[in-house]
């Protein structure tokens, strides 16, 4: 606890000096915090776009937004949430935690790490720079189906901003993946075997493998698109024999692993929170670890379940439906292991646990609607309807976002040395939980009733109005939840209860150092003999390593 000095010195210095320190930093903790702050800022922007979309859909034949603006907003909303909220927030949290969890002083390549953050940020700004371009932001949807992106249909520079922004931020993501793999494989504390790393770190290893395989094909496809637009190439130009179908394959070869890139780290966070707040070890670590890697590899072969209605062939339809069912098995294994960890535990219902339980209940439903959609025959009916919109929001909010909130509420005391307000956290949770269900459950119904996604407005006689009104009401219940979250983050920084080193009585290495940790993380190299090194320290009479 003797290492509070850095905090004191920052307060005395002028703002410009503090700012300079953040801009030039290569410390994984500061970079992690910057990633998360960036992601939360984009979350608020992307959320605002979603609210405007929902207002437009509140009444049949509404004209709150012009049609083009509506298209631009759903394009930016999707792009923002996937590339500039989801990935950065997960990479940021991992940046902060992976070196601490494995007992290292920093990431393997600190400067590469800083590069990764800055190009991700500038990639995001580049996409948003399209607001200042003639023609404005792109309006073709986040998966940018060709030939809507070709010069013929998108003359302005909006698509270029979008493509370049994703190429640039993609470089940052690959850099982060390389860095995590090198860190986890080579920089673990003495004694920590690869099968003893904290579970969050393990999922980051899996995510990083997916990043290396899935991101470069997107980069290649975006380069092809730019060559089409500016160098006269014909990759996605049907008039010269090119094919829109190739873009779909290339995009979804990235796009489907991407959803696992977005959810595996959330699995990891849940797997840290549930044991600590159940006062038990994670049930079936080995099976969880194997299931994670099974997801990593199976999910590389499921991408064309986004394309059943394209008319591929029955063989391909069956293959991709089968592979998609298959990936539900390791996910199911995880679900049962989390439940088994909870079973018989002494549950502590603090905010991280609340979000973790929210995750378990909601992700289960999102996963099941995914299995429904993986049936090619059912998908023929539901493809590109609001059922799909409901499904993937259920997974990305119910899964990723609830997991991330569990993680942030769990680790905030470590990062800042202060506790978040439990009262605000509970308000945040219940508003989000209720608002989320109210927003996205009716979308499933609207989808079954035939409402296509991305339509700008609808006729009053379709029976869709009530479901859209419920969804918009839900969105307005969610809004204060996010604001309360942002306020809680800032307010607790000054007014939160001092946290101490280990407020949750947890077992992984990050809780062995001070809160916030010093720049060098640990005074001496920690030595690890089990999956719960801190348990061993606290209970020398009954250490874990005797049983593992």
């Amino acid at each position, binding site marked *: 606890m003797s290492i509070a000095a850095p905090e004191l010195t920052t307060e005395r210095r002028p703002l410009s000096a503090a700012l300079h320190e953040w801009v030039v930093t290569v410390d994984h903790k500061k970079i992690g915090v910057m990633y998360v702050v960036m992601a939360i800022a984009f979350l608020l922007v992307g959320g605002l776009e979603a609210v405007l979309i929902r207002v437009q859909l509140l009444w049949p034949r509404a004209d709150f937004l012009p049609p083009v603006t509506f298209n631009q907003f759903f394009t930016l909303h999707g792009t923002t949430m996937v590339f500039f909220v989801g990935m950065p927030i997960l990479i940021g949290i991992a940046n902060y935690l992976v070196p601490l969890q494995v007992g290292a002083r920093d990431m*393997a*390549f600190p400067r590469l790490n800083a590069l990764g953050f800055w190009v991700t940020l500038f990639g995001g700004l580049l996409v948003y720079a399209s607001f200042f371009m003639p023609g404005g932001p792109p309006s073709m949807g986040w998966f940018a189906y060709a030939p809507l992106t070709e010069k013929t249909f998108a003359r302005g520079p909006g698509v270029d901003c979008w493509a370049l922004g994703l190429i640039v931020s993609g470089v940052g993501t*690959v850099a982060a*993946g*390389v*860095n995590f*793999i*090198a*860190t986890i*494989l*080579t*920089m*673990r504390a*003495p*004694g920590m*075997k690869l099968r003893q790393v904290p579970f969050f770190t393990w999922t980051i290893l899996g995510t*990083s493998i997916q*990043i*290396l*395989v*899935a*991101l*470069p*094909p997107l*980069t*290649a*496809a975006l*380069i*092809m698109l730019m*060559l089409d637009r500016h*160098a*006269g*190439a*014909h*990759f996605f130009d049907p008039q*010269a*024999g*090119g*094919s829109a179908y*190739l873009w779909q394959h*290339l995009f979804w*070869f990235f796009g489907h692993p991407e959803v696992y890139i977005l959810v595996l780290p959330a699995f990891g966070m849940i797997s840290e929170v549930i044991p600590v707040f159940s006062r038990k070890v994670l049930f079936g670590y080995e099976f969880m670890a194997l299931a994670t890697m099974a997801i990593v590899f199976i999910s590389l072969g499921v991408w064309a379940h986004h394309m059943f209605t394209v008319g591929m062939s029955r063989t391909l339809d069956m293959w991709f439906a089968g592979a998609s069912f298959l990936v539900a098995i390791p996910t199911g294994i995880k679900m049962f292991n989390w439940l088994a960890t909870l079973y018989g535990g002494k549950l502590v219902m603090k905010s991280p646990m609340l979000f973790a339980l929210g995750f378990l209940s909601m992700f289960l439903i999102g996963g099941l609607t995914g299995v429904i959609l993986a049936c090619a025959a059912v998908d023929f009916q539901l493809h590109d309807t609001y059922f799909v919109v409901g499904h993937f929001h259920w997974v990305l909010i119910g899964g990723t976002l609830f997991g991330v909130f569990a993680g942030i509420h769990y680790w905030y005391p470590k990062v800042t040395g202060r506790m978040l307000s439990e009262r605000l956290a509970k308000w945040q949770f219940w508003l989000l939980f209720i608002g989320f269900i109210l927003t996205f459950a009716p979308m499933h119904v609207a989808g079954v009733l035939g409402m296509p996604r991305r339509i700008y407005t609808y006729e009053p006689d379709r029976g869709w109005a009530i479901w859209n009104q419920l969804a918009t009401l839900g969105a307005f219940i969610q809004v204060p939840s996010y604001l309360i979250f942002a306020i809680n983050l800032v307010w607790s920084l000054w007014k939160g209860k001092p946290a101490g080193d280990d407020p949750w009585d947890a077992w992984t290495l990050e809780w062995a150092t001070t809160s916030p940790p010093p720049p060098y993380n640990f005074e*001496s190299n*920690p*030595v*690890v*003999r089990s999956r719960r090194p801190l348990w061993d*320290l606290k209970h020398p009479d009954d250490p874990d390593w005797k049983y593992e």
Partner: protein
Amino acid sequence: MSEAVAIAVEPRGDPRKIGMIAFLASEGAFFSTLLVGYVVYLGKSIVGPTPREVLSLPLVVGTTACLLASSYTVDRAVRALRTGTGGFARWWAATIALGVAFLAGTAYEWYGLIATHGLTLGTNLFGTTFFTLVGFHAAHVTAGVIMLLTVLRLWRRGHLPRREPVAVTLTAWYWHFVDGVWVVVFTVVYVVGR
């Protein structure tokens, strides 16, 4: 924590080497995508010229031989450092020369394709996919030559450790990778696809 003695410290890899392997894996995914693009559009061009009409095998066999030989020379350079037998700079410089020869051959080939046959990125799908695939490979060779030159300069000025510096090893790995990609590109574009 005084029980540290009881812990057998497992050997861990060098982070720089693991990082390089991970980076090359991502490069592999990138080139695979370009190759998929090439193969998918093979024979789908609406107008000519076709690969058979314009691609000259003798020239490319020559450039391929340069690149394959350069993998050998770079390996000799690394081994010269490892065994301390000397001759590193000579083998390394030979690698650079072979890399430049490959690029010169590619430039000559492209000049012929563009000036004589009128094949550009915009001519047909063959031009689109060929120039993208071969161009990105050539860009990687160019980057490799710059890396090789940088290492040579650092070495000559004594900025690198004398016994197998990791910069040398990693540059050699990158070079082998670029060479390996070319073997696939050569097979797909000039042998199977022609």
